[in-house]
């Protein structure tokens, strides 16, 4: 049997070896991070910096001059059209995210906590739309909601309406509906993960203490699924806020959103500095939303 003294000596002898190993591991981790940092630099950070630099330039005739100016940002605040449409885009993005949460939460709850079998299959069914091209999904909705579309044919087939109704397409309703449809998988995935992670023993303990279904949901399920709730809401909000294709394709005469205004500056207007400034404003808003939700949801909520 070894004495305590002998053991202490042994430990002290091994300590430097462990320290070296620990440092090696740390270096290895750092080296492993290099490609990720490079990737982030190339794909995210450098383009954003370039956009930021462009936003401080100014268009003169058809030339973009290198004069440093805040004029493009001032144009945003001076022109009521810009911030009015931005506010409208906020409103639309909020409605889309709220609706996507309302639809996705019961679905995620049912699949993750109620169903015993077939969870993976249903999970796949919900994310299958992500495999289909974005544009194809938009066109599909246009076909469903149009005058000769599935919905109108169904209503007329059931003798609910005599003529095709034009209220389903080319308005804010069709934009919200399609954006919600696009957002649902992005909301569902974090919600499902959050709900699935809630330990069953907590629920059982609550029941043992006499809590009914409502109390279990209110005191355990809802608070513990909050990170998924916030992450899903954030993803959906950012997705809807910057979209310009759905408003253009399905929005009709009232469909204009902020993304469309940004896009128009890169076309005939050929005002890339203003387009960059407007784009950067949108990017900053998205980044602030991301930061706030990260603060409230915690690291686990964002990365789960």
């Amino acid at each position, binding site marked *: 049997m070894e004495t305590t003294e002998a053991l202490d000596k042994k430990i002290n002898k091994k300590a430097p070896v462990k320290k070296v190993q620990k440092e090696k591991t740390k270096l290895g981790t750092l080296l492993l991070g290099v490609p990720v940092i490079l990737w982030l630099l190339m794909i995210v950070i450098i383009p954003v910096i370039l956009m930021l630099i462009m936003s401080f330039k100014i268009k003169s005739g058809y030339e973009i001059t290198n004069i440093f100016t805040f004029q493009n940002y001032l144009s945003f605040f001076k022109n009521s059209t810009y911030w009015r449409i931005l506010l409208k885009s906020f409103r639309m993005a909020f409605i889309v995210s709220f609706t996507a949460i309302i639809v996705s939460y019961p679905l995620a709850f049912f699949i993750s906590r109620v169903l015993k079998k077939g969870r993976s299959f249903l999970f796949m069914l919900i994310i299958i739309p992500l495999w289909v091209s974005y544009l194809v999904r938009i066109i599909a909705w246009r076909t469903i909601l149009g*005058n000769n579309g599935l919905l109108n044919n169904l209503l007329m087939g059931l003798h609910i309406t005599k003529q095709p109704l034009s209220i389903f397409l080319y308005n804010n309703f069709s934009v919200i509906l399609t954006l919600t449809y696009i957002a649902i998988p992005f909301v569902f995935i974090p919600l499902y993960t959050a709900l699935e992670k809630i330990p069953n023993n907590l629920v059982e303990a609550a029941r043992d203490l006499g809590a009914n279904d409502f109390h279990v949901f209110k005191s355990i399920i809802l608070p513990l699924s909050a990170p998924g709730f916030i992450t899903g809401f954030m993803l959906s909000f950012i997705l809807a806020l910057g979209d310009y294709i759905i408003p253009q394709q399905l929005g009709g005469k009232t469909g204009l959103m902020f993304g*469309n205004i940004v896009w128009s500056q890169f*076309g005939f207007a*050929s005002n890339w500095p203003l387009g960059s400034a407007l784009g950067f404003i949108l990017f900053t808003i998205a980044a602030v939303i991301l930061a706030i939700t990260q603060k409230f949801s915690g690291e686990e909520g964002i990365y789960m």
Partner: protein
Amino acid sequence: MKKTGLIFLTVLALVTLVFGVIIVNGCKPKAKAKLSIACFKGYAEDEWVKPFEEKYNATVEVTYFGSVDEAFAKAKAAPDQWDIISIDSGRVKLYYDAGLIKDIDTAKIENYGKVGEYFRTQGYAELEKGKKFHVPICWGDQDFVVNMETAGEDIKPYLKDIGDGKQALSYNVLKDAKLANRETIFDESTNVTNMSAISAGIKTPFKLDDNGYTKMQEELTKWAQNCRAFTIGFDSEMQVLTSGDAEVILTGNNSLVAMALADQNLGGKFKHFLPAEGTICWIDGWALSKLTTGESLDLALKYMDYMIGDEGQQKLAKLVGFGIVNPSGASGYTDVIGKTTWWYSTSIDKFPVPLYVMVAEENPEQRVKVWTDIKASLGK
């Protein structure tokens, strides 16, 4: 002896290797010359691109774009990615001012003399004295397509006889409350501002002063308020027509729409009408990138030459159905074009309503702003 033999073998091996490398490299086929084309669909079809590649032992790379807006954004973002680009008469100055294009030596284009005088003498292409920056290949106008089954009666008050038993349709149809939410116009600032300016009685739709802007904006706002949606290109126009989502549309792709509707056996339902007050005329053609040199430049000129030659024009007339610039190609028109957009198969000099050939607008940025403001006011 052994050593000498070894040296001999080594030298022989080295010589063989060096000659081998030289022979292999020498036998490699010469790298193919390359021509990069950026254009609308229909201007670089396999039907003539493949034979062109074979004839000149060249590779032709084609990039398509869906709208003129998209074309300019792409061309400006990557000016080294295309040798020639299809642009219309109204954008030539835009590309020139943006420093994207250079003059074309038309003397090296054999068929240039076959292009009708009307097109060769247009001032828009001559941005520097004696230098051409655009080789026209076809032309077209913007007009109405009406679903006669559902809107035939409603448009009657707006029809005007233009001779030969033909009728034109007044722009006022776009303001009729009866047709509210049954019409569409384009989501393209230049076209809609120009056409609404014509409708407002302005004779210089491409050069608006403050008063002209006010009149145009009033007119365009009324159109927009009465519309159901704004279309973006051919697919979008076809979609609203075939789905019944709109019954009266302004189209920028009239002959393509006519042919596509005929293909779907829907041609009988729809009828094309020229706007009675006049319309804008785009002349599409090729512009040459400032960066095109060497073999690519030769190929670019040959490609332009082919497209304005008799065979190229016939194929173009058959495929896209728009007006052609070399009358020898007229035999290519199909019956569908003769019955629907019939004015393409006659001379442009006999166009039955006032025709305004598109040139650069006085301030495209201002027009984008006006159109954005109008759309924003509708979406409150």
